[in-house]
């Protein structure tokens, strides 16, 4: 059985070789670990935000570092797989990470974030927009760099009513993901307040992201006595394009309100001359952000990666490092509890992409300034900005 013996021997050799990774934390530097996807489908979401985070890290290092130490980056690939995610998390922790950055999506980032929580370290979701990405789904040391999906729905509803004088609303929900449901949850919370002021929800319907046709839903919209002023469309790619196309092809010209998930111009050629279409974004990728600093960031991003940002989901990566570094400076240590307590003191902390607030109950944004992007004749551009009049309360966020 020589072959068997040699197989087992080589298996051990391999296991040993892998175990022999040197741990590389020294006192002169602070390690930030990225347990994100650099292969698999999540890479498309993680990579851009990670690049943005690197830009902020480079800026901090160029300005002398954090607490006088350089920030060093280590990373491990989750391969867009949950079990690998847990390993990736442990791997960056073993390499001395003080901050563990995990995947954009709650489901795929959670295993690594749980590993960090277990080790008593601060973890940040790159751009997860579910309320679970934080205290509720991981633990007291976990945060998300983005804004809750519910805020997007609430923002669009209030803005359309107050700014665009929309009176009648129609709610169309794609039940595929938590994110979609989150947008509509925010809309549902805002709607009664607007109805008290004269708005009206004239109907609601659901579909599934991979439905080839939403003809039935469209028929129901068409059979309303009057075309609604605005349709709140809680959906995401890839089904969003087909839904939008079908709504417009049916001759419905209502405003279409969306979540940030449809930001980006890459799909617009599929619906030629799309108009009356609105998206909330944290920063504009279309070169017209009112803040010149954002435009400067876009230029740096292009210089570094060779492309323009593809959607607003690039930006949370930058704000994430920004707020964490500020908290570390204020706490004068990278110790997790001290940093968390500094983060929780942040109230409307200014960042490049709007103010950020964290509290003891919520490590996520339940109120945020959004720029509103209007797509007119197939050209998106910023037409205003909106901050919801009051934060979305916990009981609208957490399922009863």
């Amino acid at each position, binding site marked *: *059985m020589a072959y068997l*013996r040699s197989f087992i021997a080589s298996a051990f050799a391999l296991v*040993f070789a*892998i175990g022999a*990774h040197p741990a590389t934390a020294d006192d002169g530097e602070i390690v930030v670990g990225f347990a994100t996807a650099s292969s698999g489908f999540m890479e498309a979401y993680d990579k851009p935000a990670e690049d943005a985070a690197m830009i902020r890290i480079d800026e901090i290092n160029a300005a002398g570092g954090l607490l006088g130490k350089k920030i060093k980056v280590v990373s491990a*690939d989750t391969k867009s797989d949950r079990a690998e995610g847990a390993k990736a998390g442990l791997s960056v922790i073993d390499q001395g990470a003080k901050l563990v950055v995990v995947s954009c999506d709650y*489901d795929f980032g*959670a*295993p690594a974030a749980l590993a960090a929580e277990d080790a008593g370290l601060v973890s940040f979701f790159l751009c997860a927009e579910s309320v679970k990405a934080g205290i509720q789904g991981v633990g007291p040391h976990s945060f998300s760099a983005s804004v809750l999906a519910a805020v997007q729905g609430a923002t669009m509803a209030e803005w359309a009513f107050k700014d665009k004088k929309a009176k009648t609303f129609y709610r169309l929900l794609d039940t595929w993901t938590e994110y979609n449901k989150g947008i509509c949850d925010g809309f549902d919370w805002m709607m009664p307040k607007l109805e008290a002021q004269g708005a009206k929800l004239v109907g609601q319907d659901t579909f599934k992201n991979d439905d080839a046709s939403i003809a039935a839903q469209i028929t129901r919209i068409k059979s309303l006595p009057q075309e609604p002023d605005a349709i709140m469309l809680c959906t995401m790619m890839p089904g969003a394009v087909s839904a939008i196309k079908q709504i417009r092809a049916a001759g419905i010209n209502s405003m279409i309100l969306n979540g940030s998930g449809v930001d980006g111009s890459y799909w617009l050629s599929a619906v030629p001359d799309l108009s009356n279409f609105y998206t909330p974004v944290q920063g504009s990728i279309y070169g017209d952000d009112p803040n010149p600093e954002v435009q400067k960031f876009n230029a740096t991003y292009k210089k570094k990666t060779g492309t323009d940002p593809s959607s607003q989901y690039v930006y949370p990566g930058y704000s994430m490092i920004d707020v964490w570094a500020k908290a570390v400076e204020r706490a004068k240590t990278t110790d997790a509890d001290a940093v968390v307590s500094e983060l929780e003191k942040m109230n409307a902390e200014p960042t490049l992409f709007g103010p950020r607030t964290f509290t003891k109950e919520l490590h996520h944004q339940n109120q945020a300034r959004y720029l509103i992007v209007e797509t007119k004749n197939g050209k998106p551009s910023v037409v205003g900005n909106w901050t919801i009049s009051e934060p979305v309360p916990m009981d609208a966020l957490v399922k009863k």
Partner: protein
Amino acid sequence: MTTVTAPTLPDELAPRKKPPRFWLARKTIMTPILLSLLIVVIACLTVMTGSRPLNQAVIDVFVRVTLVVGLYIFIGNSGLLSFGHIGFTCLGAYAAAWLTISPMMKKSALPGLPAWLLDTKLPYWESAVFAALFAGLAALILGKVLMRLSGIAASIATFAVLAMINTVYSNWENVTGATSSVVGIPIVRAIWPYVIAAVVAIFIAWAHAISRAGLALRAARDEPTAAAASGVDIPRERLVAFTISGAVTGLGGAMMAHSIGVVTPDTFYLGLTFITLSMLVVGGMSSLSGAVIGVVLLSALIQALRWFEAGVPIGSITLALPKGLQEIALGVIMIVILAFRPAGLIGNREITFFNRNRHK
């Protein structure tokens, strides 16, 4: 280390005289002992390195050992390919989640659970036992129907079971959280519980294989007509194996839930089904040693490829394979192994100490 054709009776000992008690057990006990030693040695080496990612990787290997040994109990002994066992893993994992998540979190995330379950919080090892029993019970009920089929019809029917369980668990919002992750499962990072689970699975598989039911089932696998003529109730023996293997894969599911701390229905679907089946096939479908060694070797291979993907520093340069090559290389290596050894690496032999190689 040598091999023998494990539990087949040698000609000269045929029925004439009843063999002494535990004769077969004594003759074959070395196999599970050696396999368990292999597991324990790997665990000891891992603990010695002190590396947490390696620890997690090895925990993953042991979970898969449990799953693949579970598969072997049915597939190896009955000769029927089952695509449905990962469904029982799913049942086990969710049962573990239901039993171990703190009641407060359960009330908000899974409000549809019965009240007694909502208020239960068990330690992980108790929950693992109940999860295994629950999966075994489900296997018993489903198997009662399925085991009347044979050949390809049975395989397709097991696949339907997988799809069915997946669909139910992906949509039963109040009880399984539908497609959202179920969180709050206590994470067990120590390696020893996984070692125990794998060793228990190995001994269960061995005990079943040498039991009356196991022997009858293997006879039915090799010569169905002759076995039936000798009084073997084939559907019944298959059902026994199906139930036991359902329970063991359920145990694997519970351990998996505790190793990651998150369960979602899509974890327990085609991906896991095919990786566990290929580990079994590469190792040797009708051998317990094959099941265990297949997992260990393929897992080591996957780890090595991942390591090369991440980059290997040689002097001042880092050599790295393109991302995603791991899956391709793994496929190619499996094809090569199967081309040269169609019955798998170990074939239908078992590893033992003594050189008592007998022919069929």
